[in-house]
């Protein structure tokens, strides 16, 4: 079993996001980030769309989990050093805008869920459609 610590260490390290030395690799990581963020946003939208069909505690937990995961995805992307290339800067700027909008919306959803504001939840979720569409388009256009 001497190999086990090494395997565990490698497994842990493979979960980390490293630097992106080329614009192509940066683009791939950006597309992956967009897809992951979209998953969290869609989770929140699905939960809000069915808010009347679940206990408040369940809705709140799903929204808190989605918000935390979204924040983690955003900060991981922000920690990647982009290559010195205007195209990479454009990618970063485009995705940052979408992530920022999504993050604000997710926080708002959590606040409204804790206030049991059903109308506010519906309206905020509606506003997030454009962000979700944008993330989906970004992931498709830049994914391999």
């Amino acid at each position, binding site marked *: 079993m001497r190999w086990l610590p090494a395997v565990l260490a490698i497994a842990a390290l493979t979960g980390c996001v490293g630097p992106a030395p080329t614009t192509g690799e940066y683009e791939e990581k950006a597309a992956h980030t967009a897809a992951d963020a979209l998953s969290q946003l869609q*989770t929140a939208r*699905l939960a809000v769309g069915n808010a009347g069909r679940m206990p408040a505690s369940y809705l709140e937990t799903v929204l808190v989990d989605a918000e935390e995961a979204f924040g983690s995805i955003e900060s991981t992307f922000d920690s990647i050093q982009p290559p010195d290339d205007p195209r990479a800067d454009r990618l970063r700027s485009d995705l940052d805008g979408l992530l920022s909008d999504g993050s604000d919306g997710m926080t708002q959803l959590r606040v409204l869920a804790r206030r049991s504001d059903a109308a506010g939840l519906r309206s905020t979720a509606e506003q997030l459609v454009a962000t979700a569409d944008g993330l989906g388009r970004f992931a498709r256009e830049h994914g391999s």
Partner: protein
Amino acid sequence: MKRVFGVALGILTAIGGFVDIGDLVANALVGARFGLTLAWATVLGVIGICVFAEMSGRVAAVAGRPTFDLVRERLGPRIGLANLAASLLVTLLTFSAEIGGVALALELATSVNYLLWVPVAGLAAWLVMWRVRFSVLENTAGLLGLTLVIFGVALWRLNPDWPQLLNQGISPGNPPGEGLPTYFYYAIALFGAAMTPYEVFFFSSGGVEERWTRKDVVTSRVNVFVGFPLGGLLSLAVAGCAAVVLLPQGITVDTLGQVGLPVAVAVGKLGLAVAILGFVAATFGAALETGLSCGYSVAQYFGWQWGKYVRPREAARFHLVVLVCLIVAVGTVLTTIDPITITEYSLVFSAVALPLTYLPILVIANDPDYLGARVNGRVANLFGTLFLVVILVASVAAIPPMLATRAGQ
């Protein structure tokens, strides 16, 4: 009549007890990413666990001793120790994941952070393992776990395109946008989820706890060949729900809350309450099984008195091992490592350790010194050997796809 009731109870318990946190997460995750194109891996895993659980149940009923009690005696201390180390490590990791699963399920019911539930879940598990009779413990958890049938109800109420779902199930292959290494990574995870070593540990030791005799071989077989496949259908229902509701939305599963969303969509509040009860029962039941399995494996290797069929003071070292493992499991989850991540890694490491668990079962089940005329027949040996090959392949192939895909990303 009593015997019929006993068999029916055994089947229901086997169905309800089959699904644990690994099955819930792996099946929902895979359903949301691959549809039902990986259903074959679950089916393969269910057949595999049936093959080896039948052998270990037969050994327990005929020899009156659990399989792993015989491993050291039959194969020597070194192979016994390798068997113990691999199985114990994976079972302990699974134990942590199950305790985390209980806490996550309670968080969904209360919105109180899961970390606050972890010590509560640990204390409850310890009290039950220490004080509650084996049959009560096993039957209650198994029967409450049956509430996960709500996923089957949800799938039916979602009214999916059944021919398309069936077509996915019988057409293996990676969908567009998913690479082959990722596909095989999750195939191995699903196979590992169905064949986790603790299930056989618990099944064979449980047979001894319930004082099975040669007459109970039939009961054991019915439990295995009816209960486990029906439990496998529950797993497929979880995957089917995710495939119908989450896949079209681009949602990948990484929390227990996402696993239950399709039930909310299809059945509403009451259905979701039943699903949460099922999550708690399935994970708590599996926490008891894995916790006891840790005690069984260590005590049986060292030849100590073990089990719940004697008073705790007569099996003090067994209960001490259970308690120490519980503290390690609770401590692991309290480090704030995501329980879902622990689950995902436990499934892959489970696949790596499978040969060390299942090879000895095949050897013991062929030994006439223990089983007399009830040794494996040709069919059991054919399936046992075939599955041992599959297990070896899965074991060797488990790590490269994990590294290549960054654990399935």
